[in-house]
């Protein structure tokens, strides 16, 4: 017999978890003690529980593994909520283990008690309160199973302290059956055949793909399919890297800050093949405007509730992207003949491309777009790029051409400022020798800046690319355009000296103020300071805005372009 705390650790070992992000406290002391007595599972001590969850989330996004966080009851748990909600919105598999007050104290407003299951319920895929040590191992097994299968998501396991002290036999089930949980994997063959038929008839097709392709590890299959069809491909923000961005068939990201060609191609397509993408409101613009065009929609998604939620779907296919694409590829093996009119469609798309909607004006200041372009060059297009939320996030998405999946790590659904640095930590724990850059802003970086300390302790050489405009730039852009330049609370005064701050934490700091210094500084950071965390404070043009832009309430084709201004 072993203790509940040891059971927790044994479960993690059985799940091949090599790293847990966490922060100790009273209710998890037994678990931390069990952790101390072994060395299979490493632990990264963060400086704030929010960062533990973000790091576990990025560990998962940048690998195929389930990220794990471990926190104490009460404030430990409440600090994780933003991180859990962030992972939930982007369907990221994750297990969060939380301490709870001893069973007999639950409900008595005990010290550091909170209703963990109640607080997290709306932002988890599922959660459990373990009430008996005999259920502990099977509950953790279920948690990993639920997190990683079907539409992935975070699962919380709340473990009262007394349970971690009780003794029990350890038996970890190899597999698990749940009568109430059986996600569909294979798509319906009849529907897939119908889809192929519709693709044959398409005259103005588009392949629109999202996070589901990344989550399903189906980028290769998608690429094969797209090549076979020779149709244009667009990605959502979450889908970037699912199809090589440098490929001729790629028309760029679509949506609020999508390219002119992607948004027009999406809007005027007569057939949309949607793959693991959920027709988000940032993607289709005004839904009435979008439904103004007649088209047929094929939608592959593992979650039936994503289908026909916001856009009426003609050929729904419920299933795992990788499995469904396999079937499609088999059906297409006999040869595919696209409608001859598709070549006219390509001409139209090339004309839209000719607008060069991502062109931007240089100025005496450093332009943020330019920094990202140089970052792309210096890293050979092969870095993991994490980002925070704001203009810098959009610039990173637009100008860093992701050719591989799981390289673009950002918060799309919840849009959580502060994720960038902990995301960098999670990526590095999962991919120890990778180049990792965190593209951020002076607003966002300050939301989890304390993690520079964690990076020092564990030697995590994130390159922080701070696109410092002295503004909550994304907010300022909206105020400039829609609130007659009333810049209410979007100007960040009293910024710290980021160079000194980095140095205070024991890292390297650089301030870059001139365009000609951008590239040399980046080279230096990625060569000479390869193994250091480098805080690169780029003082950028404070007036730079993100274009194209589909304003709130506007149709997808009603974009504001940089050239209009």
């Amino acid at each position, binding site marked *: 017999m072993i203790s509940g705390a040891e059971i927790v650790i044994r479960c993690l070992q059985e799940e091949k978890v090599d790293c847990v992000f966490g922060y100790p406290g009273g209710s998890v002391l037994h678990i931390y003690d069990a952790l101390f007595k072994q060395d299979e599972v490493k632990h990264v001590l963060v400086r704030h529980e929010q960062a533990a969850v973000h790091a576990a989330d990025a560990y998962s996004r940048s690998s195929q593994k389930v990220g794990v966080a471990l926190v104490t009851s009460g404030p430990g748990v409440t600090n994780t909520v933003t991180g859990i909600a962030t992972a939930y919105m982007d369907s990221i598999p994750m297990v969060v283990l939380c301490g709870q007050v001893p069973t007999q104290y639950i409900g008595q407003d005990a010290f550091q008690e909170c209703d963990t*299951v109640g607080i997290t*319920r*709306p932002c988890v895929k*599922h959660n459990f*309160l373990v009430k008996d040590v005999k259920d502990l191992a099977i509950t953790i097994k279920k948690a990993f199973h639920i997190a990683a299968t079907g539409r992935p998501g975070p699962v919380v396991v709340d473990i009262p302290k007394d349970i971690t002290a009780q003794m029990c036999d350890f038996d970890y089930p190899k597999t698990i059956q749940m009568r*109430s949980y059986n996600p569909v994997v294979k798509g319906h063959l009849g529907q897939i055949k119908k889809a192929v038929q519709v693709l044959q008839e398409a005259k103005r097709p588009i392949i629109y793909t999202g996070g589901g392709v990344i989550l399903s590890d189906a980028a290769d299959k998608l690429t094969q399919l797209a090549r076979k069809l020779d149709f244009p491909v667009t990605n959502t923000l979450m889908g970037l890297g699912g199809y090589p961005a440098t490929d001729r068939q790629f028309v760029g990201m679509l949506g609020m800050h999508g390219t002119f060609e992607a948004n027009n191609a999406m809007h005027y397509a007569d057939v949309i093949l949607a793959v693991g993408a959920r027709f988000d409101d940032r993607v289709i613009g005004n839904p009435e405007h979008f439904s103004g065009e007649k088209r047929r929609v094929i939608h592959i998604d593992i*979650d*039936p509730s994503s289908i*026909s*939620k916001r856009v009426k779907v003609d050929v729904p296919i419920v299933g795992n992207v990788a499995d469904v694409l396999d079937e499609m590829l088999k059906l297409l093996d006999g040869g595919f003949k696209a409608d001859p009119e598709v070549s006219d469609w390509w001409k139209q798309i090339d004309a839209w491309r000719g607008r060069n909607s991502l062109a931007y004006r240089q100025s005496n200041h450093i332009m943020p777009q330019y920094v990202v372009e140089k970052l792309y060059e210096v890293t050979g297009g092969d870095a993991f790029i994490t980002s925070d939320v704001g203009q810098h996030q959009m610039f990173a998405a637009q100008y860093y051409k992701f050719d591989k999946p799981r390289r673009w790590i950002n918060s799309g659904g919840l849009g959580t400022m502060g994720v960038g640095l902990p995301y960098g930590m999670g990526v590095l724990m999962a991919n120890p020798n990778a180049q990792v850059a965190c593209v951020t802003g002076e607003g966002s970086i300050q939301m989890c800046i304390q993690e520079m300390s964690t990076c020092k302790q564990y030697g995590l050489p994130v390159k922080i690319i701070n696109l410092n405009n002295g503004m909550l730039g994304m907010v300022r852009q909206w105020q400039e355009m829609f609130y007659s330049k009333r810049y209410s609370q979007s100007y960040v005064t009293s910024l710290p000296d980021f160079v000194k701050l980095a140095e205070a934490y024991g890292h390297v700091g650089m301030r870059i103020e001139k365009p000609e210094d951008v590239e040399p500084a980046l080279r230096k950071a990625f060569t000479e300071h390869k193994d250091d965390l480098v805080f690169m404070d780029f003082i950028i043009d404070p007036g730079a805005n993100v274009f194209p832009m589909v304003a709130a309430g506007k149709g997808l084709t009603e974009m504001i372009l940089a050239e209009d201004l």
Partner: protein
Amino acid sequence: MRHIISILIENEAGALSRVAGLFSARGYNIESLTVAPTEDPSLSRMTILTWGSDEVLEQINKQLNKLVDVVKVVDLSEAAHVERELMLIKVRATGKDREEMKRMADIFRGRIIDVTESTYVIELTGASSKLDSFIAGLDAGLILETVRTGVCGIGRGDRILKV
């Protein structure tokens, strides 16, 4: 349109709050909700009376199915079914009203299950509309208290909801 959703759900602590939370978080309507364990005590059967457009009902159905504790969901109102609701209603029963109350209960096939000098408790089951008409048929000033269970329903004939 009015729909009756029947759900088989794991009889776990918190399962009810997952369903109730889903409805409030997504802005779906709940007119009534009843729940109790089935003949298999590990399962509960829940009946929800809701309304909404076809699109909303499609989402309700899909979102309920997504809950990990939910085993099965059917929309009873899609085919032949029977539905019942139980009401206990306490009324003032004095003087000439005493006789009148008894008569009303008989007409609606209700039963008087508690009697004092001045009150009756009447038990009435039936379709919700029948309970509504009973209430409408009484002098409002005589109604002291009503308690209704909310609708529960079951498919007719071979339509069976079971794991």
